[in-house]
């Protein structure tokens, strides 16, 4: 099957990543983009489109600088631009699918697509003297949750869906721990990972609860980070340094206004619709997928995507993981870079980058999935999400 009009990912890169790196948003964006251009063996003159999503997950520390795709392109020497976008979307999959769509529509041929994220306020900052002295208000829809102490996205995105999954399906805390342990094992083989020490189930159970049943180890790790992926046309894809990886299909879904706690179903929401759309756009089936990179802002989201994408039945993610399918050597290795819990919060971009590296076939060292030809990555949950199926051929 030769589809000459596909879009390909040809360059990937990360910035310096860590807690309070001291770099500004623009500096982080330029670092990641420069790394992606070097990875592709291209220069700014090869790029004519730019898209990014910038933000902070949660309360922003004061004095944060904002960046946008035009500004970053300027600093990189890219221009004039044929297309750009700095708008919102469901985390990194937003600018990823926007880039693919812009290329497919012919607005541009090569797009730099970025996610720049800054670390939110720390727990200590949230409990500071100035926080105590400043009245806190919930605005808009948040006025119906904030006065009840539903303040962290964790409570509505992680804890209540986890609790309901346990209540409906008999999922156990050990099931969640199985995933955390299996995912960390991949991180031990990834030099880009922040956490590389192996974990046991005992370690999981020793991790403190933040809001039951969510433990600290169920949460992605907040960092300053920028991630960049460069997409181009199939026609140009072979002109660059690395083996191109092709976008076989992609899909977005939005099922309600932006809310996590007030969805029609707190468990079965946009990923169900998104996955159905994704599979309708390809001849490939879930059984054809060699590895899956599933957003792990919180552990339960991996469960939701495993079920939504049809790798297991509804409610069966716990036993599926316990059987070892998602672990190293399993039938469907999941989050083979260690996930955002271990490489740091990148709001989905690490999953795209890991899918690309796995499908290149020679960049993942001991965590390489043998003969990987098809990878799916998925991002966000709740009222909005997106997913992309990628192939090496």
């Amino acid at each position, binding site marked *: 099957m030769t589809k000459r009009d596909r879009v390909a990912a040809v360059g990937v890169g990360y910035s310096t990543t860590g807690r309070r790196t001291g770099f500004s948003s623009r500096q982080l964006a330029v670092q990641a983009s420069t790394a992606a251009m070097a990875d592709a063996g291209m220069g700014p003159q090869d790029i004519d489109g730019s898209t990014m999503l910038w933000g902070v997950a949660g309360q922003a520390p004061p004095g944060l600088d904002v960046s946008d795709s035009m500004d970053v392109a300027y600093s990189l020497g890219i221009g004039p631009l044929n297309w750009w976008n700095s708008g919102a979307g469901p985390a990194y999959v937003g600018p990823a699918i926007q880039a693919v769509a812009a290329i497919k529509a012919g607005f541009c041929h090569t797009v730099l697509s970025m996610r720049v994220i800054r670390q939110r306020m720390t*727990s200590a900052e949230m409990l500071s003297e100035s926080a105590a002295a400043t*009245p*806190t208000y919930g605005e808009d829809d948040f*006025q119906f949750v904030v*006065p009840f*102490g539903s303040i962290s996205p964790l409570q509505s995105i992680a804890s209540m869906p986890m609790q309901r999954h346990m209540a409906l399906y008999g999922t156990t805390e050990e099931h969640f721990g199985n995933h955390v342990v299996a995912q960390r094992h991949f991180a031990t083989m990834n030099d880009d990972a922040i956490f590389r020490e192996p974990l046991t189930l005992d370690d999981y159970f020793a991790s403190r609860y*933040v809001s039951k049943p969510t433990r600290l180890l169920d949460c992605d790790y907040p960092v300053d980070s920028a991630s960049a992926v460069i997409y181009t046309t199939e026609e140009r894809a072979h002109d660059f340094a690395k083996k191109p990886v092709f976008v076989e299909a992609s899909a977005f879904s939005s099922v309600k206004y932006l809310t996590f706690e*007030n969805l029609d179903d*707190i468990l079965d929401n946009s990923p169900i619709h998104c996955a159905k759309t994704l599979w309708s756009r390809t001849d490939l089936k879930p059984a054809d997928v060699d590895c899956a990179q599933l957003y792990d802002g919180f552990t339960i989201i991996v469960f939701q995507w495993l079920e939504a994408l049809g790798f297991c039945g509804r409610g069966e993610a716990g036993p599926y993981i316990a059987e070892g399918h998602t672990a190293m050597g399993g039938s469907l290795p999941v989050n083979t870079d260690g996930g955002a819990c271990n490489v740091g919060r990148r709001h989905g971009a690490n999953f795209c980058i890991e899918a690309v590296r796995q499908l290149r076939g020679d960049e993942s060292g001991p965590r390489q999935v043998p003969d990987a030809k098809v990878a799916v990555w998925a991002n966000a949950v709740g009222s909005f999400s997106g997913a992309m199926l990628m192939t090496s051929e």
Partner: protein
Amino acid sequence: MTEGIAPQPLRPLPNPLTQFFWDGAMERRLLILQCQNCGHHIHYPRPVCNRCRSTDLAPHEVAGKGSIYAYTVTMQAFHPYYVDKIPYVVAVVELDAEPGLRLTTNIVECEEEDLHTGLRVEVVWTEVASDLVLPMFRPAAA
């Protein structure tokens, strides 16, 4: 934290579309925006009925009875006000007034081991400040 200055509770910032909800709470009445054309309850409030597109909407008093849809016992304070209040229970309660009509709230007067999805609950009006009354819920009387 500064000695002697108690952190204030987190507050709603009502707008013209939502003011009725908080005014009702001060009177211990649970008011939900309702479509006068088709009867659908619209929460969170929106200026148009998402079922029939009518703009003829008005607050409707509903019984403060329902059941727990999902809950979490929060163990970490994310704001100074909660430092001496953890653990506390955040829950989504489905009201009897209409299937799918849900509120985020707190469950009080309930032991943790008694919490479960489907638990019948009733509203208990809780004054957290002289000008702020919140609809919390507790296990319903048998």
